[in-house]
């Protein structure tokens, strides 16, 4: 089903380059993944990987502040970046005749960032990030769900114990020295994958990449991830956190440790979440929303994380006045009964995931993102082409085995939100 073609090259300084021509439209997607995320943050500096991502847009030695966005927008391109647990990505999509513009900008900040940093820029972006945190977390009903669930699913010394956004105190205390140190440690060519997808000639594109990035020195391999990556397979009981807050409706979040993204059993967990909550014929929707009418909405997601264990999240929102115990009972019952999932249910879930995957590959920017991910995480960009087969090879037996092993009370974190007062 998937037949993306791509070449992979490595420059002398260690930068991995993935080139995937697709000349249907005169557009090119430039996508750069760095192997650094919130997992690499040391105690007292949570949120720093993300704050650093913001600093990457504050100019570099040859690019003044605001120039980066200006030139890409003027070229008719779109751009952004994001920080996650295991990586940080930067991306531009632009008319293909402007390819070198993106290479100029990305290489300049990979090679020459610290020269352009100053206290004023850091102060400015601390303010922006603190406002981002307020907008998405503090001023948002249920905004702290991930802080609460991660705390319960992973022990304090695990890299996924804290959130990507980090704490206000840590964000506020980040210094310019931290910026430079982080840059020298993690923003080295050997810790990055550059993927170009779209209207390009691979030979000429590689030449251009060599021209812009070749002069950046390799640097050392990044240090080990802080803390202890393997927390063991299970949480070891049912951990609870009950929150009375300014939320409109009662809601249950359930977390469980699952095999990491690199393990073949991850796909069974992933298919299990689709059986549970993807579409109207999913178990949680069919039972809790439609038949019993106790839930307003439901959801489930398997996080594709790398270190030791990943985690699965499921949630159920109740109607006003609903008893959270009833919501929890329904959610837990459906998850445990996954131990007898049928072949039809698995086939439905796989069919939906297949369509979604093909739709992601259809878009140049998300195809580039997937190629970067498979290259950075697994050293093989074209592993992407095996994703449909990996999904299809998940048997009902594998989902049953996964559910029996990992979805029981020995491996459960439950965060219960209860409205503080009736409206």
């Amino acid at each position, binding site marked *: 089903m998937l037949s993306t073609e791509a070449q992979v090259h490595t420059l002398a300084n260690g930068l991995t380059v993935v080139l995937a021509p*697709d000349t249907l*439209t005169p557009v090119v997607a430039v996508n750069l993944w760095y192997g650094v995320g919130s997992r690499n943050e040391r105690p007292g500096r949570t949120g720093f990987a993300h704050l650093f991502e913001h600093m990457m847009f504050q100019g570099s030695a040859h690019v003044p502040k605001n120039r980066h*966005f200006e030139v890409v927008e003027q070229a*008719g391109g779109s751009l952004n970046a994001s920080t996650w647990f295991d990586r940080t990505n930067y991306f531009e999509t632009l008319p293909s005749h402007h390819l070198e513009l993106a290479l100029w900008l990305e290489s300049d900040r990979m090679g020459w960032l610290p020269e352009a940093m100053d206290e004023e820029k850091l102060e400015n972006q601390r303010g922006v990030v603190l406002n981002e945190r307020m907008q998405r977390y503090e001023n948002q009903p249920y905004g702290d769900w991930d802080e609460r669930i991660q705390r319960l699913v992973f022990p304090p010394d695990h890299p996924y114990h804290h959130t990507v956004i980090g704490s206000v105190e840590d964000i506020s205390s980040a210094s310019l020295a931290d910026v430079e140190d982080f840059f020298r440690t993690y923003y080295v060519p050997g810790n990055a994958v550059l993927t170009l997808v779209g209207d390009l000639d691979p030979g000429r594109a590689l030449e251009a990449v060599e021209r812009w990035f*070749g002069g950046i020195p390799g640097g050392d391999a990044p240090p080990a991830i802080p803390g202890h990556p393997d927390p063991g397979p299970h949480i070891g009981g049912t951990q609870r956190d009950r929150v009375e807050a300014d939320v409109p409706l009662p809601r249950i979040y359930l977390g469980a440790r699952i095999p990491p993204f690199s393990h073949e059993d991850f796909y069974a967990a992933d298919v299990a979440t689709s059986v549970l909550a993807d579409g109207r014929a999913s178990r949680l929707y069919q039972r809790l929303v439609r038949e019993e009418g106790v839930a307003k909405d439901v959801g489930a997601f398997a996080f594709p994380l790398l270190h030791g264990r990943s985690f699965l999240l499921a949630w159920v*929102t109740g109607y006003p006045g609903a008893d959270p115990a009833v919501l929890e009972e329904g959610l837990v019952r459906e998850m445990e009964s996954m131990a007898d999932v049928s072949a039809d249910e698995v086939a439905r879930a796989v069919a939906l995931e297949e369509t979604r995957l093909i739709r992601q590959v259809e878009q140049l920017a998300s195809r580039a993102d997937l190629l970067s991910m498979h290259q950075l995480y697994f050293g093989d960009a074209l592993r992407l082409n095996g994703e449909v087969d990996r999904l299809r090879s998940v048997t009902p037996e594998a989902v049953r085995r996964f559910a029996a092993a990992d979805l029981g009370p020995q491996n459960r974190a439950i965060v219960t939100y209860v409205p503080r007062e009736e*409206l």
Partner: protein
Amino acid sequence: MPRSSPALDRSRPPEPGEIRPFHLPAVGEDRLPQGLELRVLREARVPLVSGCLVLDAGEASLDGDRAGLAVITGDALQGGTEVRSGAELALALEQLGTSLNISTGWDATTLSFTCTAERLEPTLALLAEVVRRPSFPSDEVDRVRRQRLAAIRQRLMDPGSLADDEADRVLFPLDHPYHRPLAGTETTIRRVTPDHAREWVEARYRPGRGGLVLVGDLDIVEADRLVRRQFGDWEGTPEPRGELPAVVPPRPRPVVVVHRPGAVQTELRLVYPGPGRKHPDRLSLQVANAILGGAFTSRLNLNLRERHGFTYGVRSNFTHRRRGGLFLLSTAVETRVTAAALRETMGELDRFVAEGPDDAEVARARDYLAGVFPLRMETTGQLAARIAELLIHDLPMDEYHLYRDRIREVTREGALQAFRAHVDPASIPIVLCGDAEALTGELEALDLGPVEVRLPTELQDAEEA
């Protein structure tokens, strides 16, 4: 310090390569005998087909006391058909690896899907079954109603939604549909019955003034054959829509604070009536807006975010509906800098209207809009949705083919005059959702207009009164 090769000049952007042509394939057009417009665009990058069925069944066609009926009907449409229960229908679609997304707006109800090409025929059959033979079981309608009522409660505790909804209420007069929330109010939602939904479908889910868009690896001949099989004998045309009342911004300029005690941030909105989708000023306004607040490097974002660090971001845009629309400027700022951020915002608006943009800004905005245009027309799903938009607004199919040339014709003077004609900063209503106790003193000191504080619960009560 790392070195780059001597020939490389890093101090300025590299010269672009040779520009490559962008050709959007022509849209195949046909009309079925009963009036259903068929539009087909051939796109063969991946083996997918996306479809959009648009129906002249939007919320703006409803009187205020029936608000929410179009939305509830759309929500309940997948509750079952004459031959299948809701659960059986969901399974039939999802076993095909697809699902039906039904969205109801002011102007239309749109049913969209993406499936693999080999599964198009059975998917179209299910689409036709859902639209032409829905059964509206009472427990399904009841559930959809309860979900929408709970969603109202969610909006009442979400600061961004509170600010958006209040902005509509402040701007549009009581007898105007855009005054109310799209999905209706608690009172009107409670009134909807399965019979109302059936009557709505009978009256407005009709091929006349409706259309079906298909994008994927198929041609008009093949599409025509497949579509006629499912919709060939579908008949009827909905009643035309009437005129909407005129919108005059209230005077004196209202400054309304929706009180959220202890809020760490303020959601800020400035809102003004705007022109409909067919208005000739649309592209001039797009260029003006890109400079003011429609891009990352817009004046507002560079000021509020990149200079002052007041916010994660600020955006403005014009929303065009079939009849009328609005200009909306939105941001969220830390509580203690709210007045300062509002002063900067008003300063940027005043300066923009007084002096206008400079030529370089206009050139950059034109290039930006022309350049990003194809990036948003990439997937079969995006293309189908964009073509559906043309059908909803009764626009010619070459609109997108001409867009990039037309946007490049916008002049500095044209952009400025259009913006001046449509937005008056001296009277633009201001809505804030935040901690009124912390805000009112400073807002009064800004002297922008009488400051009024409202409670979120009052908003709902006002609707019920």
